[in-house]
Structure formats: structure tokens, C-alpha cells
């Protein structure tokens, strides 16, 4: 039965991917942009799922890596020319990886409430670095005059300023990140990570360097969050300190919880649900004056989800899906 439910999940995931691949044929430019944004959010939430859902590390500073990679792109891009993706992407990810290594080496010495607050504090440090100093040009942030280019010599088949091209690139990367994380989690490294969450003392007693495993996951999660930040800058063409704020870390945590932790595809479901719910709450025809105050509805929604649906939407779907499958067993 477990196999059949996993089979159903796999079928649903493939169907979802096909729907996303066909979506540009039907959607307008606005919705194409919205779904692109959602898929970037999904990559961001999946990266968090690796350390939160699998390794059990509650980070309230995950936006630091998203924002840092975005700033790396904006700061290294030439002023009136397109940056080359082939240079700026590895550079941004590498720099973000080094940052995650440095911060991770410090914060992973702590646990529990301390871990939450220390990750938060380091993200704030970065926020003020870009908000207060000349480096980040203050609260206005930085504009990219030209989107990064994928050209190799004269060969330039994909343009990031084309909505369709960007959409498919982000979709491909979202699937690639999903498969990468699946592979990592199925590897011995991933198994140890899951074991650490279940019983850290026992894993240590078995002779594993727990700290190194956690740090490895932390750095990988940071780099993938950086990928999402890089793509987000490609989509919108500017960065500002808000993407480094702790509120944004809260949003990605909520996205993951809403979708369901520890499943990876839960992060994708969560990204769709969160952004669509936010769009719904700010829809004026439905909420009238309260549309402007959508955060009020969002706050109530978050409180209700935490109290009533702690397993997220994925768990709800699995429960609904499990019921009909259970019937033949009785007969």
C-alpha cells in the first residue's frame, strides 16, 4: 500500500510537471511571471527543506543566502552591459557557499532556541551591511540595466528578458534542484542527515562527524537558496535589502510549513499555495478595503494553519489520497 501511495505521488508529480511545461501555451504574460516567481520561491523553499525538514535545523535567517547571491549578481554586473551567466552564476553561488560555510561553522555550535536566534542575528547583520553602507546603495537597492546573458560567443539561444525563456529555464532548474536533492537524500550523506534528526547522540556514538554533515547540508542549502536569489534578480532586474530581511526568512519558513516539510515536493506545493493565497487576499473585488490590508488576512491564515494543519497541505493530500486506497484492504 505504501508503494501504491508513493506511486500515486509520483504520477501526480509528473502530471504537475507536465502541466507546468504546458502552461505558457495558455497563460498570459502576467500569469507567466507569477508562476515563474512561484517556482523561484519553490527552489528557495526546497533548499530550506533540506536543513529543516530533513536535518531538523530551524533557521530563521535563510533569506541571507537568497539575498547575498542576488546582491553578488547586482554588484558584479558591468554597469551598461549584460553580465555573463557563465561567470556570474558560479561566482554568486561560490561566494554564497563560502558565506554559508562561515556562518554555518558558527551557528551550528548552538542548538534549539539559540540556533533560531543566532541564524536570525547573522541574517540581520548582512541586512544592515547592505542597508547602511555604500556597498549596497541603501534601501533603494541596485538596478540591473541588462539581464544576464547566456550567450556563448555569438550563439545566444536563450534570452532571460524573454518571459517564455525565463519561465522554462526556471522550470528546468526547479526540476533539477528537486532531482539533485532527491539524489543527495538517497545517498549515504542524506541518510546520515535524516538519522541526525531522529537521534543525534546515537549517530555521534556510531562514529559520524555530526558537525561536518550538518555543515555540509547547511552550505548546500545556502547555495541553492542563492540560486533562487540569483534567478529572482534575473526576473525582476533589481535587488533591495528587503530580500535579506528576517520577515522574508519567516515567509519562506511559512511557505514550507504550509506545503509540508520533509518531502521536497511539499515545498513546491507550499510556494504555489502561499503566493496564490497572498494574491487572493489582496484581490480587491473579493476583500474590498481589506485587500490593501492583506497582511491581516495572511496573519490570521498563518495562525490557523499552524494550529489546524501542522503537517501542511502535502500531508492533507496524502491523507485524502490514502483513504480510497485503504478500502480494498478491508475487503
Amino acid at each position, binding site marked *: 500500500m505504501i508503494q501504491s501511495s508513493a506511486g500515486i505521488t509520483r504520477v501526480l508529480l509528473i502530471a504537475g510537471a507536465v502541466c507546468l511545461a504546458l502552461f505558457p501555451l495558455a497563460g498570459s504574460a502576467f500569469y507567466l511571471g507569477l508562476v515563474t516567481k512561484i517556482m523561484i520561491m519553490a527552489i528557495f523553499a526546497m533548499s530550506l527543506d533540506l536543513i529543516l525538514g530533513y536535518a531538523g535545523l530551524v533557521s530563521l535567517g535563510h533569506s541571507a543566502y537568497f539575498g547575498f547571491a542576488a546582491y553578488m549578481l547586482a554588484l558584479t554586473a558591468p554597469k551598461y552591459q549584460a553580465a555573463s551567466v557563465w561567470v556570474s552564476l558560479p561566482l554568486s553561488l561560490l561566494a554564497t557557499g563560502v558565506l554559508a560555510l562561515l556562518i554555518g561553522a558558527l551557528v551550528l555550535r548552538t542548538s534549539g*532556541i539559540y540556533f533560531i*536566534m*543566532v541564524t536570525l542575528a*547573522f541574517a540581520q547583520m548582512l541586512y544592515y551591511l547592505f542597508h547602511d553602507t555604500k556597498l549596497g546603495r541603501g534601501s533603494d537597492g541596485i538596478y540591473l540595466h541588462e539581464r544576464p546573458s547566456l550567450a556563448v560567443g555569438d550563439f545566444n539561444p536563450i534570452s532571460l528578458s524573454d518571459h517564455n525563456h525565463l519561465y522554462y529555464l526556471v522550470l528546468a532548474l526547479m526540476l533539477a534542484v528537486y532531482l539533485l536533492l532527491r539524489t543527495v537524500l538517497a545517498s549515504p550523506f542524506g541518510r546520515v542527515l535524516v538519522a541526525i534528526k531522529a537521534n543525534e547522540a546515537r549517530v555521534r556514538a556510531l562514529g559520524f562527524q555530526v558537525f561536518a554533515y550538518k555543515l555540509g547540508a547547511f552550505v548546500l542549502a545556502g547555495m541553492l537558496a542563492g540560486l533562487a536569489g540569483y534567478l529572482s534578480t534575473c526576473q525582476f532586474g533589481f535587488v533591495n535589502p528587503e530580500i535579506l530581511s528576517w520577515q522574508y526568512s519567516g515567509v519562506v519558513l511559512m511557505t514550507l510549513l504550509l506545503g509540508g516539510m520533509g518531502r521536497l515536493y511539499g515545498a513546491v506545493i507550499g510556494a504555489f499555495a502561499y503566493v496564490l493565497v497572498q494574491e487572493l487576499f489582496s484581490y480587491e473585488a473579493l476583500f474590498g478595503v481589506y485587500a490593501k490590508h492583506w*497582511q*491581516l488576512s495572511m496573519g490570521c491564515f498563518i495562525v490557523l494553519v499552524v*494550529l489546524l494543519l501542522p503537517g501542511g497541505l502535502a500531508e492533507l493530500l496524502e491523507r485524502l489520497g490514502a483513504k480510497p486506497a485503504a478500502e480494498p484492504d478491508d475487503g
Partner: protein
Amino acid sequence: MEYLIQILNGVQYGLLLFLLASGLTLIFGIMGIINLAHGSFYMVGAYLAYWLAQQTGSLWLALPLGILISIVIGLILEWTLIRHLYRRDHLYQVLLTFGLILIFEELRSLLFGNDVHGVPIPAVLNFSIPLTETLAYPVYRLFISAVCLVIAAVLYLVIRKTRIGMMIRAGNSNREMAQVLGVNVPLLYTLVFAFGMALAAFAGMIAAPISSVFPGMGHQILIICFVVVVIGGIGSIKGAMVAALLIGVTDTLGKVLLPEYSGMAVYLVMAAVLIWRPRGLFPAT
């Protein structure tokens, strides 16, 4: 002399942070709850001071009324929402109180709009003590420091010398054992939560005349309070006091000496302390 003024400002800011952080650290230490909405209560306090001072015409009337209202809000929150979080993972506490922040912030926007408001300093305290021919120090700031010191002393005496303080310490060090010995732990939690909220609101109320009242004022101070609690050691009132003064002075001097980097300074101090002592200066357990 100029530095004396800045150090006095730093100490005053630090003492104000202590009011906020002591409630936060008690709620962490005793109830095991990570409460992001603590900063919102600072904001609620400031707006209550603004609104009640306008209605009653006096900050002195606004203060007790505001404390009563914030205690009531704290009790309602604990009964309806926080109570369900005691046995849940910190993650859910973070998210539920994150939702509360959004709710408080938007309610503030609905009720009071998004303008910056001022609260007049009470006439009795609205003068300065001259330090040199050109420099003077406002008495209201000294008043804030004095009030905070009195509250700190009372807090210390209550926790060290009274029966309820004994229960709080018992609940802090071993929840189950305290319950077995007949302490009404759920009631204790309710009281501690409401009291912590009232402290935060009170800090907002007395700070309102000097900091003015503005949207999002709870966000920044919340994170600074987290830093204070982490540096001091979770659950330690003494640690909160030492760390609050350290951060207050660092932040104020940082703003004068290195304005561009002052935002980061407090976090650098925190990182340094944590490398040295991962569980804070005065680990409670």
C-alpha cells in the same frame, strides 16, 4: 562631555532594552516559548500611550490604563493561542507568533494609519539639566532610566525573595518537578506571559515621548532584544541586564563613531560572545 551624554543615552537605551528583554527571557526560560510578537507589544504600548494620552490628556493616566489593557490582551492571547504551543516544536511557535506580528501590524495600520505620531513629554519632566554652557541633558531620559532601574530591582526581589518568585525559579529549572510539587504551572505560565507582555508594552509607553510612535517600530527592537537574550543567556534576568547595557552602549556609541557600521556592531558583539560562550554569558542551566 559629549561622550558622557552619549554614554548616558546608551545606558538609558540599554535599560529600556532590559525591560523588553527580561519579559522575553522569562517567557523563553520558563515557558520554553519563542515569542516573535514581543516587539509588537512594544508597538502596542507606544500606540496605547499615544491614543490614551490624547483621550485623557495626560501620560500619567495613560500609563496605568495602558498597562491594564496590555495585560488583558496578553491574557487573551495566552488563553486562545499560546497555550496550544507549549508542547509543540519551536518552529510552530516562531510561525504562529510571526502571524501575530502581521495581525498586530495591520490592525495598527487600520486603527491609526501609517503616519508618525508624537507623544508630548509630561510637563513636570520637560526640562534639561545643564552640564556645560552649551550642553544639557533632558530629565525625561533620566526618568526612564530611573524607572527601569526600579523595575529591575523589584523584579530581582520578587524572583529571589517571594513565594511566586520561588515558583517561577522552580518552573524555570524543572517544569515537571514543579508541577508534581503542587505548583499550578498552567496558571503560572498565563501570569508570566501576561506580565512579560505588560513589561514590553510599558517599555513602549515610556519610550513613546522620546522615540515617537511609528509603523514597524516593534520589528527592529525585537531583533535587538533577541540579541540581548542570546548574549545574556536564555532565562537569565541578570544576563539580560548585563547584555542590555552592553548592547545599549555599543549601539549608541556605534551610531556616533561609525554610523555606517553601527547596525552591524551589535551583531558582531553577539558573534564574538557566542564564539567565546555558545550559551551566553550567564547560562541559566
